[in-house]
């Protein structure tokens, strides 16, 4: 009985550790790159550098669903304001990870790092 508990715990620890390790590897590889793109309802409406030194760049995205004002500044890209109900896109802050795009589900807006083929680490191929 005791051995069973210990074994179950060892398995649980291994599972947690491996999951965390895999997640960490993914997170560390998250660095998206130099350029971003704004996708509205499936089409790229803007693409440009992921950061803007000096004056921030504002990109308004207006569709029949609503408006999102995207800001690109020295820190990165985020949604400055939006007229969506949940405001999740605004509160999610800067785009940090290639695995976690900034999204506004009600407006079908996605801000993500642009895939730049041939640039950066070779493991970017495994996408």
């Amino acid at each position, binding site marked *: 009985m*005791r051995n069973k*508990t*210990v074994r179950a*715990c*060892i398995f*649980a*620890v291994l599972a*947690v*550790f491996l*999951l*965390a*390790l*895999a*997640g*960490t590897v*993914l*997170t*560390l590889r*998250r660095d998206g790159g130099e350029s971003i793109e704004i996708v509205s309802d499936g089409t790229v409406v803007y693409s440009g550098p992921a950061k803007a030194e000096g004056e921030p760049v504002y990109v308004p995205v207006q569709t029949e669903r609503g408006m999102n004002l995207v800001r690109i500044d020295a820190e990165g890209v985020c949604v400055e304001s939006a007229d969506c109900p949940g405001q*999740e896109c605004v*509160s*999610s*802050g800067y785009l*940090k*990870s290639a*695995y*976690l795009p900034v999204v506004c589900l009600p407006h079908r807006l996605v801000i993500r790092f642009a895939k730049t083929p041939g640039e950066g680490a070779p493991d970017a191929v495994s996408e």
Partner: protein
Amino acid sequence: MKTRKLTAMALMTGAALMIHYVESLLPALVPVPGVKPGLANIVTLLALYMFAPRDALLIVAARLILGAFVGGSFSALLYAAAGSAVSLAVMLPLSRVLPPRYMYLASILGAAGHNLGQIAVAVAVTRTPSLVVYLPVLTLSGCIAGAFTGFCASFAYLRLIKK
């Protein structure tokens, strides 16, 4: 409550508080919020193996509340309390079934629970689901720290306390 037990509990709370304070003075090891060795967990583990669950909970609660006064903040208390609650929910039943020499298993799983609780509160408070991205890094460091504190605790228990 017997005086001897009360003294032991007070001493352990003090020790946990001191560890907690010294740790808060250390610079962050990694530029990720919440990555800390969590050495006060050594005391929590020992308390779980030495005392009744209620007394162990008391020690943790005292450390949390006093810790907010000493080198902590009340906004951090919420995160710490959530982390400790989940961690205890994992470690308490495990401490009843795992022999002391396997304390590290309870400790690692408790640490993982701690991180889960912290991130859950962070997500709820800030309404920022993308904070989940920190969970793997936190859990990984939690596993390592949990193993370390677990080994320390079982060493202390088997070599110093039980004798």
